[in-house]
């Protein structure tokens, strides 16, 4: 039996002019690990909605064609009926937890199905052990971190061992460590429990290695349905925005097959004689040496010599009766510098930005700034208070932000990239221009093209003289714009270096290209690697 079977499905949301899914026919067999790819508004979330029954039963709209989920006809089975076989995990963990304690949350779906008390208790214990959250069982859900909440929400989705697990960008709010853990967990569930996984994700380089199959959607239709390598080769030809950095590197070198992950990319490079032996690059003697060459570090040093625009001096943020969120953080940022703040969830990145933005007062230390600070917090939607994009900004600011074309649209109807651009324009509008621009996790839910556009915009603003500070979990985005990288842990700065030093050679805080190349020469992106080769240096052999 197929886990999901769609036959000529066309679906439009209520009052929508264009269908979200268009004549979609596909089958997903039981036990498959399928990744859904595509840009914003490609139809990924709608397809996941079909798999969970929310489309059309919860959202309404017009549904044509037929769909079967785990053998149940979607027309006669709503999300509640499907819930016995389908577990669903959305993007935002806060709205997926409805009970007061973790134990009650995990028990809730089992109780809804009328399981006996013994079965509920056993189910809760089993799923908690499987996900490693048994220590959280008696905790209240309001006290959990984002990563913990997401694991609990996954636990609730898995309680009762569903046959199909549907996930909509589950790692978008997690740090790289928690994100990798979650994906490893999904792979284990798929391999050991035989759970069918249907996962929509923008950061494909994270999950393709685990996938059996990739379905790329474009305007609600299947644009590509292939294995990970086949998909990446298709993306290289037709949709470069979906190509992973590793695939771009291999394709740029004229090699095949397109690698689904770091391991496969290294094997391809070795086979082509571009990696010296089977030994992983980072295991070779001398691999820990600092990068010898980096355009980024040179730029960063040059900027740092200038008078700082922003000075954070020994800032502490100590909770009354609790821990210190920031513990003596000092950092100076010069005009034109672009700093990325990295670190685990709870490391203190957002708190530091809030102190810089003046939303929080340090309990000790001080923040000095030679001009206005523009702070863009995590959720751009929080900045919108009008029904028209055009009402949020004056005409000149709207034109400068390139948003004139959507002036009549409701801000909530804009894509992730447009919302981010609008919110950025709102906080930076007015005179004098912001001397410091701070952004907190700006790439959540953004596709690769929107991220690139944002990175370009940040570069442009820094070239106009703004000091840019961005907190992100996305090493690829960090590599695209930053001239300096700062790693925070437990409220302290534990590393402050050029991106090529910090984002290469590591496991989690590293770009895919850097992981493939073992971090040598501080090369972070496929473009840099190819550029270096084109300049005559043998990138890979020169490191030995």
């Amino acid at each position, binding site marked *: 039996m197929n886990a999901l079977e769609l036959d000529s499905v066309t679906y439009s949301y209520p009052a929508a002019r264009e269908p979200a899914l268009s004549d979609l026919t596909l089958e997903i067999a039981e036990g498959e690990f399928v990744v859904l790819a595509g840009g914003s508004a490609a139809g990924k979330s709608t397809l996941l909605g079909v798999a969970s029954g929310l489309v059309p039963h919860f959202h309404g709209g017009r549904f044509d064609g037929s769909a079967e989920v785990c053998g149940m006809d979607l027309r006669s089975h709503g999300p509640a009926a499907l819930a016995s076989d*389908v577990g669903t995990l*959305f993007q935002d963990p*806060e709205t997926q937890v*409805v009970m*007061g304690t973790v134990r009650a949350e995990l028990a809730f*779906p089992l109780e809804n*199905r009328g399981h006996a008390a013994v079965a509920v208790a056993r189910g809760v214990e089993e799923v908690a052990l499987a996900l490693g959250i048994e220590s959280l069982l008696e905790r*209240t859900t309001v006290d959990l971190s984002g990563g913990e909440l997401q694991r609990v929400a996954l636990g609730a989705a898995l309680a009762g061992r569903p046959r199909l697990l549907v996930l909509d960008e589950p790692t978008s709010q997690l740090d790289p460590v928690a994100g990798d853990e979650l994906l490893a967990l999904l792979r284990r569930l798929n391999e050991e429990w035989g759970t069918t996984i249907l996962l929509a994700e923008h950061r494909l380089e994270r999950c393709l290695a685990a996938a059996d199959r990739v379905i790329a959607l474009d305007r609600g239709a299947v644009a590509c349905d292939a294995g990970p390598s086949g998909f990446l080769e298709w993306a290289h030809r037709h949709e470069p925005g979906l190509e992973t950095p590793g695939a771009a590197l291999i394709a740029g070198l004229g090699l095949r097959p397109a690698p689904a992950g770091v391991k496969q990319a290294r094997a391809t490079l070795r086979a082509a004689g571009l990696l010296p032996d089977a030994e992983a690059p980072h295991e070779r003697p001398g691999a820990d040496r600092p990068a010898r060459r980096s355009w980024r570090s040179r730029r960063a040093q040059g900027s740092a010599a200038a008078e700082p625009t922003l000075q954070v001096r020994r800032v502490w943020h100590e909770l009354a009766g609790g821990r210190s969120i920031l513990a003596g953080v000092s950092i100076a940022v010069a005009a034109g510098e672009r700093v990325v703040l990295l670190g685990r969830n709870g490391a203190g990145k957002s708190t530091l930005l809030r102190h810089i933005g003046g939303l929080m007062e340090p309990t000790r230390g001080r923040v000095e700034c030679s001009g206005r600070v523009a702070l*863009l917090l995590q959720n751009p939607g929080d900045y919108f*208070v009008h029904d028209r994009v055009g009402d949020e900004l004056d005409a000149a600011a709207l034109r400068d932000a390139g948003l004139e074309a959507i002036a009549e649209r409701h801000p909530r109807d804009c894509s992730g990239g447009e919302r981010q651009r609008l919110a950025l324009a709102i906080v930076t509008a007015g005179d004098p221009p912001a001397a410091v621009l701070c952004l907190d996790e700006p790439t959540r839910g953004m596709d690769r093209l929107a991220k690139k556009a944002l990175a370009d915009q940040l570069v442009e603003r820094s070239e106009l003289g703004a000091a840019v500070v961005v907190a992100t979990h996305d090493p690829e985005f960090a590599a695209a714009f930053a001239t300096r990288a700062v790693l925070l842990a437990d409220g302290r700065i534990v590393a402050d270096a050029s991106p090529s030093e910090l984002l290469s050679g590591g496991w989690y805080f590293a770009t895919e290209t850097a992981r493939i190349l073992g971090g040598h020469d501080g090369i972070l992106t496929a473009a840099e690697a190819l550029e270096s080769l084109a300049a005559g240096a043998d990138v890979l052999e020169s490191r030995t």
Partner: protein
Amino acid sequence: MTYLLRASPLHAARASVAAAYCASLVTAAFLSPHPLVLGVLALLILCAGLMCGVGSRVARSLWFSLPMGVAIVLVNALVAREGLTVLVRLGDGGPLGQLDITLESLAFGAKEALVLIVIVAVAALASAVIDPDEVLRSLRRVSFRSALTATIATRMMPLLALDARRIGDAQRCRPRPAGRLAVMRAITANALDRSLDVAATLEVRGYGSARRPARAVRARSRHDLAFAVSAVAIVVLAAAWPAPFAYYPTIAGSFDASAFAHAGALGLAALAPFAQRRGISR
């Protein structure tokens, strides 16, 4: 006003027993007219809060209820007509008639204020120590949908408060802050979005086809027993051995040994269960 999980004897008791204990304190406040007893009850609730690790929550509620208490005293002094000991004659108060402030009306207002303070403090204690999931699980056996609505309301409250704070912060980041009305609209629209998200989560967790949950079997702990006995003792003491105190037409009551003994007995009954510290961590 959310549940705060702590290692305390009252948290370790089942929700129904903790609720009964809190209800007994309110009952005692209604049954006891003596200001000494009411004052002691307020103090007992604060002590109970401290022993549950939620003292600051209870203290804050006491502090916030003080202005309401003062208002009750003032209003009662102005509108009550029963007292005979006139302290101040304010003359003709128009539609309110002759305004005489009497000692009795002030004292009775203070007593009513104390009752209110006790109720607010007990509410703060109850919200912090009674596990809402456990209460709602019990209620779901009676009326599933109503109980679930209450669950969602419980969950939405802190979530929406958090959202409102976040939106407020975002508005502070605008160079030209938006008007209050526009911000309120944004917060309301956000609340509707949140409600839809939570409703979608409920659907995919199978709420739409939910059945009556099975009865959960849980052995009675020493804390269940101790607080149940305490609740009964408090109500019996308040009902069967009242400390008399009359306010009208003149104050008739005293702060004698009997009143102190009554207050002491109540204190003993209310705080004794906290002496048992075994098995309080969950």
